[in-house]
């Protein structure tokens, strides 16, 4: 019997369901105290017969409509509909333009509205649908909202006692700084001729918006002097959800010491391409640029294949560095790595480098092949 009742009630699912309590203990609940007459009428009325007291049922309906209309109208308000129903006694205002701090509703107006409605159930059920469609105005709090102490805790514990914990609270809820260091590519490069190596490191220290960012790249062949090596020290500023603006200096140590000013952006492009683009102006007045893009494509949760392209450009010939105007070099790579953890992932891959145009000529003049294929083994790590 107990179950029968339970199932039956579950099936009807009126808001007032499950109130067959009262006299037996078959439902898990019974009221703490005997329901007053109005409440009893409401509950039994909705369940048993169609003779509710007139005060209870209309009340229910007006409440339902109120809820529904209300959220419709407020939604449109957020979206700029000019046809928002106005509260009584207020001149039409475009609610879409409202904002908490600028709202024109005086607190007097509002308290008037409150008073009109504060009568409670009787008033409201009598108002009918038109009244229920009335919008709840958005606006600033009444003037008395600011009447308390600036900090309630100070009034009790003292300003001094609260200071430290308050500062800590602020710093902990959003003010933290983090240090990150990544070896994006640290690899051995097998190729025709003498095998070589490459490192590509970066990291930052800072908060969500402002960071100190550093990058370092270098490569060479074993048994020879390092071919190229550079370090960048950058200020990084978040300028968009997925992109940082970066500016700073770059110092080259090989093939020769040279200093550059750097301006660039770094971030995540649509389709999840990681992009790093920068322009460099050297202390000799040479302007160059570089763009890198890589895409992590998961094969399984731990196996990732990463296509990668990098191109560098120059506004002029820089013969001492073997750089020709226009497209200087293009590099395309494909790396397959396995994540033992998110932080530690060894990889294998292939990387093809071309020197283009005048740069290729400079290479040939040096007795180098402008097109080099590297078979790489390396690790990617961060902490």
């Amino acid at each position: 019997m107990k179950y029968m009742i339970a199932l039956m009630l579950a099936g009807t699912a009126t808001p007032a369901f499950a109130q067959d309590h009262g006299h037996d203990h078959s439902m898990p609940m019974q009221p703490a105290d005997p329901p007053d007459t109005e409440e009893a009428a409401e509950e039994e009325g909705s369940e048993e017969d169609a003779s509710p007291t007139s005060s209870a049922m209309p009340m229910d309906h007006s409440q339902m409509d109120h809820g529904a209309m209300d959220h419709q109208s407020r939604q449109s308000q957020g979206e700029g509909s000019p046809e928002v129903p106005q509260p009584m006694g207020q001149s039409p205002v475009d609610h879409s333009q409202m904002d908490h701090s600028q709202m024109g509703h005086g607190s007097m107006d509002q308290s008037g509205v409150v008073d009109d409605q504060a009568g409670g159930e009787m008033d409201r059920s009598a108002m009918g649908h038109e009244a229920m469609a009335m919008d709840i105005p958005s606006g600033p709090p009444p003037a008395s909202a600011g009447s308390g102490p600036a900090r309630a805790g100070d009034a009790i514990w003292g300003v001094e006692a609260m200071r430290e914990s308050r500062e800590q609270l602020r710093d902990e809820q959003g003010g933290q700084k983090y240090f990150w260091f990544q070896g994006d590519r640290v690899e051995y490069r097998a190729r025709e001729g003498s095998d070589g190596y490459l490192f590509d490191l970066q990291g930052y220290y800072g908060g969500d918006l402002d960071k100190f960012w550093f990058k370092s790249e270098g490569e060479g062949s074993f048994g020879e002097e390092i071919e190229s090596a550079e370090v960048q020290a950058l200020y990084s500023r978040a300028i968009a959800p997925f992109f940082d603006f970066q500016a700073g200096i770059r110092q080259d140590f090989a093939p020769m010491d040279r200093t550059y000013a750097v301006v660039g952006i770094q971030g995540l492009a649509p389709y999840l391409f990681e992009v790093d683009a920068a322009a460099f102006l050297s202390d000799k007045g040479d302007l160059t640029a570089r763009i890198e893009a890589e895409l992590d494509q998961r094969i399984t949760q731990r196996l990732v294949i990463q296509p990668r392209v990098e191109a560098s450009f120059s506004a002029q010939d820089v013969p001492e560095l073997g750089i020709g105007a226009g497209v200087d070099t293009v590099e395309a790579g494909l790396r397959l790595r396995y994540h033992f953890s998110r932080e530690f992932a060894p990889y294998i891959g292939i990387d093809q480098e071309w020197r283009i145009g005048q740069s290729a000529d400079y290479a040939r003049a040096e007795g180098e092949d402008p097109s080099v294929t590297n078979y790489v083994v390396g690790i990617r790590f961060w902490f």
Partner: protein
Amino acid sequence: MQAINRRKFLGSSIVAGGLLGASAAMPAWARGGNMHGATIRQGFDEVSGRNIDLTIARGPRIVQGRSGMGVAVNGSVPGPLVRLKEGEPVNLNVTNALDEDSSIHWHGLLVPFQFDGVPGVSFPGIRPGQTFTYEMPAIRQAGTYWWHSHSGLQEQAGHYGPIIVDPAGPDPVQADYDYVMLLSEFTPMHPHTIMSKLKKGEGYFNYQQRTLTDDYPLTGQERRMWAEMRMMPTDILDVTGSTYTYLANGHGPEEGLEYLFSRGKRVRIRVINGSAMSFYNVRIPGLKFWVVAADGLNVRPVEVEEFQIGTAETYDIVVEPIGEAHTIVAESMDRSGMAVATLASRPGARAAVPALRDPPLLTMADMGMAGMAHGAHGAGTGGNMDGMDHGAMGHGAPSSGGMDMSNSGEGSGEEAMAGMAGMSMGGMDMRDTSRLPPDVEVGPGIDMVSMNPQDRMGHPGIGLDKVPHKVLNYRDLVALEPNDDLRTPSRQMEIHLTGNMERYMWSFDGEKFSAVSDEPIRFAYNERVRVKLVNNTMMAHPIHLHGHFFELVNGAPSDRQPQKHTVIVQPGGFAQFDLTADEPGDWAFHCHLLYHMHAGMFQIVTVPQEAGQPDLQRVGESG
């Protein structure tokens, strides 16, 4: 009705927990002070009376063979059940034996704000070695609550425990057994390490991501769309079973927590989500049960087979077990793990533990594009037809604007349709900031803006909209006792939940707490306000207001709107509540996902004292 001593039965659960725990060593704790290497016990004792002593200290934890450091109170995780009595005052003496500041916040209890326990808001915090006394006047409510640290990230490390307030009069919930099921997580990682990994490694803990070999039901077009948006349809929980062991009363799923029952008797289980970062889907395969209370306050019983419980929520359920044993499953929302307990008719009885279900995927509705999700949503509610009411009918279907007498419905309908027409998967603007009100700070901290947010009170929770059985949703909740403040709100305010998943930034109205710590949200004393929380992210956020209960605007009659202290705002949707600001003081208001709060999704709500105004004391005045 057989008279049963509730305490006796609760005691049996505790004894069971204690025996199953790793160690029964506790005398060092009873005296307070540091653990001196003693392992933290799993499960909890009970403390009660007018004076209650609690000691916070650090120690090693072992859960299912994994070990880590933990923060325990009175030597156990969870800490002791604090048992209070409605109408009676209590002094809680909290000693901090850590080497850093600590605190206890009494989650859901209506207390003077200076004893609410949030360092930097309500009090200075408890210094190392200090004993702080929370002097509580007569408790104004009854029901199921919990307590936890509000200092740093101690909560993740084990600093939490249950609270039960026994009603002054007879309990309207009749049950023969009364148990607590406090859900939480264990990780050997230091909480700061977790935060740091979330900041630096996007999707760090998610091992259910899209891959070339997954079998998610996504078309190539959908996969490209998600990639174009730079977002993940599997971004369900930030921290997952890849590091967490999910706990019930401190016990891992293999550690055999059991609740004993006699057949034919009713068992009340007070389910508390005391986790740092997890939503759980709770069910007892093969049994239906009644949800009888939400966030401590009684609701009209709703019969369901499953419910989702957000972080910091509590639900009391009543179940009548029929078999020899039943498994209580609390599956994490992303289905990467579960906490397990057994309803056992004799010690050691066990029922099958179901396998984890397939991980869910986010939908268009979770992106705030309800127009496109219309079809899917309809299918979803189909399974829950018995839970629908007037309010639910209008929900989620933009075209229903036409049904409304409100002329403003047209606007939203058109808007949604226009949005739908313009959505050629590829070309949509996921971040049209012109849809935000002007008081929202637009910057890198916002990576998306919900295009057409809908009232999602009727949504049962991510992944549960298509299950074939009845799942609880907020529209099912109806207060058992009538509310006493029936005023129509005099104003409404809108708060936008904002974030950037890539940078792991979380905020209200685009601004982290660190940027607005001197600009609290202000209410007038006794002001009645409708608050609309609009979720512009693709994660569900459990938003918690300290010191108050608010009434969900969920379609229930206004005098029966359920009162809660925490509301889940579903992704891409909005939720509304009516608040009577009648508790003076400064109160924390935040997302209860610990690392979201830590990243900035936190604010202070301030309510001035107004002399001469009678305090309404809306909760707990059942007498």
